[in-house]
Every structure is written in C-alpha cells, then in structure tokens.
C-alpha cells in the first residue's frame, strides 16, 4: 500500500509536471528562461506580502508576479538596459525584499525554506485543488490560444503584421506563468520552478518533430522526473524537489549522450 503522503506528493508533482510542460516549451522557444526565473523569484515577495496583509498567498503571488512583469516591461521600454541585467536585478532584489519583509513580521512564523526549495512531501488536499483547478484553467487557455501563441513564438513581427495581437498574447503568457508559479511554488519552491519548466522541454526538443510532440514528450519526461525524484527522496531520504530536478537533469544527459552516437 502506498502511504497517503506519497500519493498526494505524486499527484501534486504530476500535476505540476503537466502544467510546466507546455509553458516550459514556450519558455525555451521564446528564450525566456531568465524571465521565468525572475517571475518565480519575485514570487517570494508575493508570499511575504500575502503573509503580512493576511490574504491568500496564491493570489498574492499572482499579483506580485504580474506587478514584476509590468515593471519589467515599462523598464525595458524606457531605460536602455540589457534585459538580462535588468532581469537579474529584479529577480534577486524581489527575492531579497521578500525575505527581508518577512523577517519584520514578528507575528508570522513561517519556514521560508519550504518556499525556497518546496515541500513536496507536505502537500495536502488544498494544494491539489489549486494545482488541478488552476492547471485546468491554464491548459484550457493554452489550448484555446495555441495557434496564435505558436505564431508569435516563431516570429513576433510577422505575427503582428498578420494581425495577431502580440502584446495581449505576451501578457496572457506572463499571466499563465504567474499562475503556474503560484501553484507550483509550495511544491518545488521558487528557486527550482524554472528548472521544472525548461529541463524537460530542452530534453524533449531533440526527440520531437513537431511543437505538439515536444509538449507531450516534455510532459512525459516531467512525470518521469517527478517519479524518479520522489522515489529517491522516499528511499534515500534526499530532499524531494532537488531530487526531482536531478532526475530530470539525468534524463537530459542521457538523451544527449544517446543522440550523439
């Protein structure tokens, strides 16, 4: 018999892997890995604001991610600064502001480590509702906007000339990423969310011939990674979220080595 704790960890991990796959593909196609990192690091700011103001943490995280995205866009348009520099500044500043803010709040005692690195083995039913409810919303939106999103990722200006509302789509994609980060944060932690998006997608890229295949393969790889990581965590007592990342990385290495022959 599988213990409940492991079962709900597996369900949560699979849900996050399924969600991370399509968004991870967009992150890889659109070279947004740093952007994803910045969004997820800024989620900690959302956590601390949520705790301070006593509002739902998931909502606070979504709000703070959107705020960071808006700041980013306005900075990019007004200041001329390399966007990786800007992303680096925003990522680490918002992470640090989040940590500093929480330390001021005497009345809240939270284990920030679980937000930084996740706590896969402590997932409860409410986490599962968020993952599968939010996940269904994200996947439905992606399916609905799939074609224009793909066009935009191939060539943004060509898509714009062809009448695709590129700005709106970009905002939508950011919103979806914020949602995924919010629901995945407690499971894998803000520091590791991006890896769950990009490592399976980057692995799938060499195995797929169409964009859709790439999404499906990366979802499967994500599920394998979660299974492997949780197994290691269960039997070898390793930290769960990092083990999932290590397992995904091993799959990445294996496909690289096999393909080279």
């Amino acid at each position, binding site marked *: 018999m599988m213990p409940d704790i492991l079962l709900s960890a597996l369900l949560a991990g699979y849900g996050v892997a399924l969600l991370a796959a399509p968004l991870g593909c967009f992150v890889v196609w659109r070279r947004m890995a740093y952007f994803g990192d910045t969004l997820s690091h800024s989620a900690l700011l959302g956590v601390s604001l949520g705790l301070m103001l006593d509002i739902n943490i998931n909502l606070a995280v979504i709000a703070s991610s959107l705020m960071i995205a808006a700041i980013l866009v306005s900075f990019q348009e007004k200041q001329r600064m390399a966007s990786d520099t800007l992303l680096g500044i925003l990522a680490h500043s918002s992470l640090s502001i989040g940590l500093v803010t929480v330390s001021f709040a005497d009345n809240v005692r939270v284990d920030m480590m679980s937000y930084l690195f996740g706590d896969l083995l402590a997932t409860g039913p409410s986490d599962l509702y968020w993952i599968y409810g939010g996940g269904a919303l994200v996947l439905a939106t992606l399916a609905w906007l799939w*074609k224009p999103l*793909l066009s935009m990722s*191939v*060539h943004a200006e060509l898509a714009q000339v*062809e009448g695709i509302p590129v700005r709106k789509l970009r905002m939508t994609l950011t919103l979806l990423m914020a949602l995924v980060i919010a629901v995945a944060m407690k499971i894998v932690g803000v520091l590791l969310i991006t890896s769950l998006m990009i490592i399976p997608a980057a692995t799938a890229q060499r195995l797929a011939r*169409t964009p859709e295949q790439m999404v499906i393969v990366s979802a499967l790889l994500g599920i394998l990674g979660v299974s492997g990581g949780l197994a290691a965590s269960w039997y070898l007592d390793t930290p769960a979220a990092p083990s999932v990342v290590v397992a995904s990385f091993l799959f990445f290495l294996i496909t690289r080595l096999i393909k080279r022959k």
Partner: protein
Amino acid sequence: MKFQNREVLTGINLQVNPGEIVTLIGPNGAGKTTLVRVALGLQEPTSGQRSVRKGLRIGYMPQKLHIDDSMPLTVNRFLRLTGCRLTAVHDALGRTGVSHVLQSPLQSLSGGELQRVLLARALLHKPHLLVLDEPVQGVDVTGQKELYQLITEIRNASRDREHCAVLMVSHDLHLVMASTDKVICINQHVCCSGHPHQVKQHPAYLRLFGGESDELAVYTHHHDHHHGVDGHILEPQSPVSEGKQ
C-alpha cells in the same frame, strides 16, 4: 522618427500606389528598416502619420527569419500557422518554386529556399501590398535574378485583379530590380528618387553580367549634397576636398 532623441528619419513622404513596385535603397543606418516598420504599423512614428486603405492586406517578408533550433517545425507547419489549407500552401510553394521542401524542417533549408518559403508565406494572405525587407540578402546573383523575376511575376499576375503593390528594401545601392517603378534613396531623409535605368544600357552592368538579364537594373544616383558620417547634410564641398577622400 526619433530614437533616444536622435533623429533617424525626417521629412519622409512615402506613397505606394496599387500595382506599383517601390524600392527603398540607402546606406547602412539610413533608416530603411525603420521606415518599413513604420509603414507596416510595427512602430509608431514620433511625428507624422501612416494611412492605409481600409481592409488592406499586407504580406510581409522579414529581413531574416531566425528559427530557433529549439522549435521543431516543418515548412508545412510553418505555413499552416497562417490558418490556410494544405492546398493553398501547396499552391504558394509551387508559385515560389520550392514545393519539394514541404516536409523539411525549417532549420534545414538553404538561404535561397528559406527566402522563397517566406515569400510563399507572404503570398498566402493574398496581399494587396507585399513588403519585402531585403529579399535577396545572402542569395547569389543567379538566385537574386530568379527571385526578382518571381516578384515581378507576382506583381504582373495580380496587377489587374488585385493590384498587388510591392514595397521592397534593397541592400544594394546600385542594383535594383528592373521592373521597379520608383526607386527612393534615403539617408535619414529622401536623397533622391526616380525610375531606374534599364540594365542593358549600362556598361557597368554589361561588363558584370554579359547583358543576359532583364531582372537587374542599375540605378544612377543624382545627389546634390553630401553627408557626414552621421548622415547630416554637409555644406557643398569643393571638388578638391572630394578628390582627397
């Protein structure tokens, strides 16, 4: 048009009439691509306005299409993203002469093939206006001739029915397409404009290509001013100082 308070384009009036082929030429940094982007509506001009006929369909062929290796995409899929049927995709590829690449991954195409696929994509929208940003860049002279011939055919084929106009940027200052109706040379402002001379009459061209082609023409510039490095108009120079450079 200004970037960072630096004037990039001033006093430009660009008009493309139905069925007309207009070629934009100018040195690097002259603002050709910026002008095209304004014409396409991709960039808002800092002053001035853009007016297009209502319901105008534009087919755009960007200067370079860099498809990231991370995106597995065949030519068929790339063209189907426009929402067109397979038969339309077949037709468009047939018109541009690259039907054979239908199932190839985009990343495996040669420069010339990719340009033709891009042209096919621009045609799929049944455009009233084709905007081509350096369509022959990175293509050898034979390929250039063929592409120009193709563009001329496209214009001619649809001239009566659809009045397809062409706005094209050329990377070459002197060789432009022979069927061009109007050449506009810009360097932050309009330097000169007019009809290109027929290739065949120009000795420089005859020496180069043996006078076999109808597709390339030499455009003779007739500037009445000189430019500094930043593109500003300098005072008329004496012939002596000109000789020194």
